[in-house]
């Protein structure tokens, strides 16, 4: 079965499912505790998964595989490679933190809230672990239901508008993907993702399939111009909802690109690469500028997410190792950092109940621990060397440079603009004069908040200082993808040829 002897992935799905059902029958406090316990069990299982994952040279690509053909047309097939492993780790790491973040800030309908979060966890882990095309689709789509409820029930003032927009936007994107999947499974005669990854689809069909998948993943990532659901959803969602939305749900789009679009349709990816380059370039510059003028903290971070995810997409379609590894690192780093930033916003929102930047100021005086951690995450978001943000952005832009120097040049401005809007935000919130009595009276982080933010901070530094821990599990799998797409590699515009200097050197100089 696998190296552990028990179906660990199914258990990782079963634990939160059972807890979610049990939560509905508990009182508030019991539901909180049970949810925390279940997510911690999943985290422990995740660590076990990582510890036993074989990432040595020549290790099998797919590990921990399970296959039960109970559904007829498709199967309960799970299994992970290094890419999926890291994203599962990201999900199970952020979940307990989300539960902690909601401990006191959610007071109404707590059991249902916890159940919705646990179901979200099931569906996220399931999406990353699914090895059957339609099982993937079911997990991918089903994630909309709990998130719709989380935004709609526990969200802010415009929550209903935001929840509709979130649901319908993503649904419209996804349904076209389903038609493409049906076509693919009929063409290949299988729904098994590893087999489909080896299938060469006809080049003339690839463009259509690629566009159908693009419709789904571009909305999920999100890419400009279909990103508009994201700021609304983030602003209205409760803090933990934003964390999970930015931390993991956006990664489903990136995961989709890396798992399906690129290796299954290499020719189409090459033909249509201009779509990615243009949209990513616009996204970086446009959303960074928009972020610069926001008054709402959550909106600012939401727009910065769009900009960061554009760096992911440009790196993904670079067709080389640096780009792909960089994109994965940006995804992981962004998952942690933007999650942490939303938590930081949540911390002060819980105290003052406003997200307006102008209502704060001088927090470094009365909240020094908070200001320190907030600073760390600000720097990580900017991409300061030594933090996780730097590794990913550097690699991914370096990979992208080999495809299009122009697009990379445009996207690199995002780093500068990112520094501008993040530092501007930090300056307005943490520094300056504490002239607002209510803001100046806010207490510093309590133990619960400190544990949540501190845990993320440690991982952010770990990823920045020793990224090898995170690069190692996916090295083989990235290699497989690079080898797979090599035949369709686009011609690179900065294709420097080695010149032949036409200089006659004096004979005695050559003799030296």
């Amino acid at each position, binding site marked *: 079965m696998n190296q552990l002897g028990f179906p660990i992935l199914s258990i990782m799905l079963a634990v939160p499912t059972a807890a979610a059902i049990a939560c509905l029958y508990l009182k508030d406090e019991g539901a909180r505790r049970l949810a925390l316990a279940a997510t911690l069990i999943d985290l422990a299982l995740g660590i076990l998964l990582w510890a036993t994952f074989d990432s040595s040279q020549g290790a099998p690509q797919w590990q921990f595989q399970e296959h039960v053909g*109970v*559904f*007829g*047309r498709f199967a309960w097939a799970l299994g992970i490679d290094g890419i999926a492993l890291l994203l599962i780790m990201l999900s199970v790491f952020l979940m307990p933190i989300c539960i902690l973040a909601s401990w006191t800030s959610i007071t109404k*309908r707590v059991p*249902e809230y916890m159940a919705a979060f646990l179901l979200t966890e099931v569906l996220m882990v399931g999406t990353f672990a699914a090895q059957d095309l*339609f099982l993937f*689709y*079911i*997990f991918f*789509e*089903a994630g*909309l*239901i709990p998130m*719709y*409820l989380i935004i*709609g*029930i526990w969200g802010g003032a415009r*929550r*209903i508008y935001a*929840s*509709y927009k979130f*649901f*319908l936007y993503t*649904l*419209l994107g996804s*349904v*076209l993907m*389903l*038609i493409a999947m*049906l*076509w693919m499974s*009929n063409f290949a005669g299988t729904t098994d993702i590893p087999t489909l990854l080896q299938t060469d689809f006809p080049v003339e069909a690839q463009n259509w399939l690629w566009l159908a998948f693009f419709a789904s993943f571009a909305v999920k990532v999100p890419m400009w111009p279909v990103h508009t659901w994201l700021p609304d959803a983030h602003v209205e969602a409760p803090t933990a909802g934003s964390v999970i939305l930015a931390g993991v749900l956006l990664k489903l789009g990136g995961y989709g690109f890396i798992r399906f679009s690129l290796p299954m349709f290499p020719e189409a990816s090459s033909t249509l690469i201009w779509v990615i380059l243009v949209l990513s370039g616009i996204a970086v510059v446009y959303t960074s500028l928009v972020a610069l003028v926001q008054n709402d903290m959550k909106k600012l971070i939401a727009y910065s997410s769009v900009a960061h995810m554009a760096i992911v997409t440009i790196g993904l379609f670079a067709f080389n190792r640096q780009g792909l590894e960089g994109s994965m690192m940006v995804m992981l780093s962004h998952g942690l950092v933007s999650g942490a930033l939303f938590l930081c916003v949540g911390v002060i929102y819980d105290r003052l109940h406003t997200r307006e930047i102008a209502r704060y100021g001088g927090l470094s005086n009365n909240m020094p621990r908070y200001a320190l951690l907030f600073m760390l995450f600000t720097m990580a978001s900017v991409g300061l060397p030594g933090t996780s943000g730097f590794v990913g952005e550097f690699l991914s832009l370096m990979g992208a440079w080999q495809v299009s120097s122009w697009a990379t040049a445009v996207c690199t401005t995002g780093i500068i603009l990112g520094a501008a809007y993040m530092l501007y935000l930090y300056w307005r919130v943490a520094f300056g004069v504490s002239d607002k009595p209510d803001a100046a009276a806010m207490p510093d982080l309590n133990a619960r908040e400190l544990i949540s933010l501190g845990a993320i901070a440690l991982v952010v530094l770990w990823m920045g200082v020793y990224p090898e821990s995170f690069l190692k599990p996916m090295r083989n799998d990235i290699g497989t993808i690079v080898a797979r797409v090599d035949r369709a590699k686009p011609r690179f515009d900065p294709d420097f040829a080695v010149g032949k200097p036409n200089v006659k050197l004096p004979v005695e100089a050559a003799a030296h």
Partner: protein
Amino acid sequence: MDYAQNLLITLPELILSIGAIVLMMVAAYAGDRATRPIGWAAVLLFVAALIASLFPAGIGFGGLYKADAFSAFAKALIYGGAAVSVILAPDFFERRGGQLRAEYPVLLLLSGVGMGMMVSATDLLTLYVGLELQSLAAYVLASFMRRDARSAEAGLKYFVLGALASGILLYGIALLYGFTGTTQFSGIAAAIGAGPLSTGLLFGIVFAMAGIAFKISAVPFHMWTPDVYEGAPTPVTGFFASAPKVAAMGLMVRLTVEAMGPAYESWRQIVIFSALASIVLGAVAAIGQKNIKRLLAYSSINNVGFALIGLAAVQPGRPEGVASVMTYMAIYIVMTLGSFLVVLQMRDAEGNNVETIASLSGLSRTHPALAAAFAVFMFSLAGVPPLLGFWAKFVVFDAAVKAGLWPLAAIGIAASVISAFYYLMIVKTMYFDEPAPAYHRVENKIEGGLIAVTALAVSPLGYFLIPLLADLSTNAAQALF
């Protein structure tokens, strides 16, 4: 084939007809006191007919009637749906001040006979007789609350428009008979396959399909649906949306495949148009509705559109399309019966039924379990995974893609997002809005149990039924080829 065998093949219809006549006599002498026993007897008869429909197969009465895997599949759904409709009626009518009249179960039985005939018909005349038997019972049922103006209006509208549709169908039958010289499906298919399609025959096909499109309430013959659904008593509406839909769809499938199979390229255009028009109109028109029954009426129009996509995928020798239609109808009947069961629980403090969507506000806090069940049905009808309604859509789109109709599938599925909007609206009303006055809580174990069973069936647990459903529907479909 001797007479005994003919009778054996038609055993389900015999059970229902004799049972209906006997119960009618009981009703005449015992009066309305016997309503409940008669109702339970009717349920037993439906169960007996369901069991009887599974066994003997063959062609009876010189090619007028056929019992095969297809008819067995459809009859299982029809009799099951009809039995549930009998069960949910008495409480409703008692709350409306009167008692349920004893004729109600009898009419459902007679309607059941007609529906059985519809899906077993292999001759245009059996088809017509079955359809009329079903319809005449349905007209009476629609106006069953005689003193209620809306119910009477519903019955009258249904009758007038239904009569018009029957006329159109008869005209189509006449043309088909005139140009092929036979009323038997196999003979018609042979005549169509023999040469190029004549204009008269084409008109016959168009008229016959128009008549049946009325019965499945496919656009552009859907106009009666919202009014009749709104006016008819709720249990009757639940019945209209379930069993007769399956019967009419079964009839449509058998007629198009067995009789008009060789002309599939001609009728496919009609089916494609009707499918897309039903999906779009059913989705757009539902958005503005304030009445839950009207909304479900448009939802049924919308769903018929999806089922028709499966029919459009039918090609000679390829049963996937038929199998997908039957799977769709099987899942649809469970979702729709579940939804109407929930609608029956919507009662104000005095116990009167309310039908406004606004009264659902905050249901998740006043009746959490009921709200959860209704949310399951709504998400399932919207076709969102992991609920079983997704699987229904999956199979029809799969069949369409296999038949090379992927543009149709892409347009259809994109339009399904519009319909997701109003299903979400119901969920929003129940979960996001502030509570309206709570519904009157009536403990009815049977209805509560049925809601739980249907909700579980369309929940992710229902996915374990997929292999069984696939086998049965494929079997049913192969019987037609």
